């Protein structure tokens, strides 16, 4: 065996441990770089979420994977095979579209069996697969209905069934729950996880809803302006956001910005509109630089003024309680600090002693927040 051939074989071996691999993929639309040098590996059986705001290039990336859009640069591997030049119908993928895109002239059964029919599978085999997937999505008995005779949630299940029926190497989902109401979305989130766990097909799931991404996935990529800001395990992203963008996008709801006054050990002291605040020092920051500091509301505590009993090293600020939103297990407390800035704190409900308009103490550990160099914007 000559060396080249061996290396090639070896490379194939490596890629085939991934269900999906993207290598430096790029897509340009006129002046817009919709996808900018994206590399990604999705393992077999993984639930991978692509999270990003509107216009960040999520759909474009998904369409490149599906072959509906050609990549300007880079390669796409599916199931270990280089499919960069393959048309969509020769990629072995399944897809669930945002508005379902069921074929209106075909029945539910015909819609779901469509990928099997295209594969020229025998009728008995088709029937087997169909009944397996109808069981999975709990749509037995709806085979003869037309799509316009289904509710939103049922259409969603049919779209999912059609994506899964041919047991693709990978299932791509573009905001599949965005068109459903809140109740149904919660229910379908649970279902999605169940499907995925049961069939062991990797999901690449596009969403701009951080809660959905955190609930459903194993790993998350946060996308911004066509590139990945951070890729990693969901807890890793949640606990250690790498950039200010990731921090703000993953629900760190209190943003504090200010200029660094002085530094001591690993901490900096900043001027936050008149309040001097202790924060962890971001990399390469010196006095005079501007920084942004993100605090998660559930890492903070609120007590009536003078009654706080903070843990060692906590910061305590006084504030006025403006509003309380009861959420069940906890409440969201909106307070106004002495410098007229607002903060939200999620803490256990305490109707006894916390009254709107009353003075309160707000406390947190400086190390529970994340600080980054501010990129110009407030």
């Amino acid at each position, binding site marked *: 065996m000559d060396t080249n051939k061996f290396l090639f074989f070896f490379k194939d071996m490596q890629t085939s441990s991934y269900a999906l691999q993207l290598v430096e993929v790029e897509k340009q639309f006129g002046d817009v770089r919709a996808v900018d040098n994206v590399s990604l590996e999705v393992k077999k059986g993984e639930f991978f979420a692509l999270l990003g705001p509107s216009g960040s290039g999520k759909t474009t990336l998904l369409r490149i994977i599906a072959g509906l859009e050609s990549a300007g640069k880079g390669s796409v591997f599916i199931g270990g095979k280089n499919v960069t030049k393959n048309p*969509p119908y020769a990629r072995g993928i399944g*897809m669930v*579209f945002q508005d379902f*895109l069921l*074929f209106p*002239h075909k029945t539910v059964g015909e819609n779901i069996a*469509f990928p099997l029919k295209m594969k020229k599978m025998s009728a008995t085999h088709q029937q087997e697969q169909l009944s397996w997937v109808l069981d999975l999505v709990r749509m037995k008995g709806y085979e003869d209905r037309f*799509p*316009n005779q289904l509710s939103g949630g049922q259409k969603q299940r049919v779209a999912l069934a*059609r994506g899964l029926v041919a047991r693709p190497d990978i299932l791509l989902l573009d905001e599949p729950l965005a068109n459903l109401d809140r109740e149904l979305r919660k229910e379908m989130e649970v279902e999605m996880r169940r499907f995925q766990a049961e069939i062991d097909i990797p999901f690449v799931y596009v969403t701009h809803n951080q809660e959905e991404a955190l609930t459903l996935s194993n790993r998350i990529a946060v996308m911004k302006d066509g590139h990945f800001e951070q890729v990693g395990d969901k807890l890793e992203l949640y606990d250690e956001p790498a950039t200010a963008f990731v921090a703000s996008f993953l629900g760190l709801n209190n943003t504090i910005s200010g200029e660094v006054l002085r530094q001591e050990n690993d901490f900096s002291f900043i001027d936050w509109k008149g309040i001097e605040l202790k924060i962890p020092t971001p990399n390469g920051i010196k006095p005079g630089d501007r920084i942004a500091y993100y605090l998660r509301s559930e890492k903070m505590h609120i007590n009536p003024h003078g009654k706080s009993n903070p843990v060692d090293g906590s910061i305590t600020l006084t504030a006025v309680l403006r509003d309380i939103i009861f959420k069940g297990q906890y409440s969201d407390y909106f307070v106004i600090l002495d410098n007229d800035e607002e903060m939200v704190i999620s803490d256990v409900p305490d109707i006894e002693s916390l009254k709107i308009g009353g003075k309160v103490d707000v406390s947190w550990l400086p190390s529970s927040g994340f600080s980054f160099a501010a990129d110009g914007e407030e």
Partner: protein
Amino acid sequence: MASINHQASALKTGQVVLLVLLYIFLYFPLLFITYDSFVHNIIWPFPPEWTLEWYQKLLGMSDFHAGLKNSFYIGLFTAIPATLFSTAAVIGLLKYRTRWRGGMILLYISPLFVPGLLIGISTLMFNANVMGMSGKLISAIIANTTEDIAFSFLVILAQLVRYDWRMDEAAMVFGATPAQVFWEVTLPTIWPAILGAFLVSFILAFNNLEISYYNLGAIPTLPTIAWGSLRHGIKPELFALATVINMLVFSAIAGLFFLIQTGMVRFGYRGE
């Protein structure tokens, strides 16, 4: 309250009257000719003296059978290429976005703005002088196809702008080749628009006089027979001829209407 109700009902009566007037305006001449074709006393047909003699005369006319056959051929062989071309044109135009789209649409429909007479004369000159085929049925068919591509283009475009081409993309992701996409997804959804365009093209070409006339020379069609015999004064057989043509067209439309009513045919793209 009462006065508001009163006003509303007056408005409604007015609308009904207007509607009836409109229908009379549209259909009275046609109905009158139909009625007239069945009476003996055509000049002042009241009270009627029923007869079928005009139909017998029409059937006896030497040109009638040839004319009917020729009209049918012109209708059919114009409608087929016109529908095929315009379907392909609309699909191409909608599926592949280009900034020349507006200009291309204009080029497709511009035959509508050229008087039929001019199309007739210029295709005659072109066909006779350049192609060397004057006075042939095929010349008339080609000339009518020009105009009917434009008509059926509009008919199909009006329906297909509502078609969701992402449906085709979905089919492709699920393993359908472009040909399979067309047969499995596109055509089953858009065929009513294509059928509609076919019928419009057929009827237009079947009834056409001014484009066909110059290209046909001595070959008769129903409209040229009518036109020809008009020059010798109005003959009652013409009423019978007009009624026959109207009945043919009307039954085509009525048949279609029946299919729609019974749900055997759905027009337009029915979204989810």
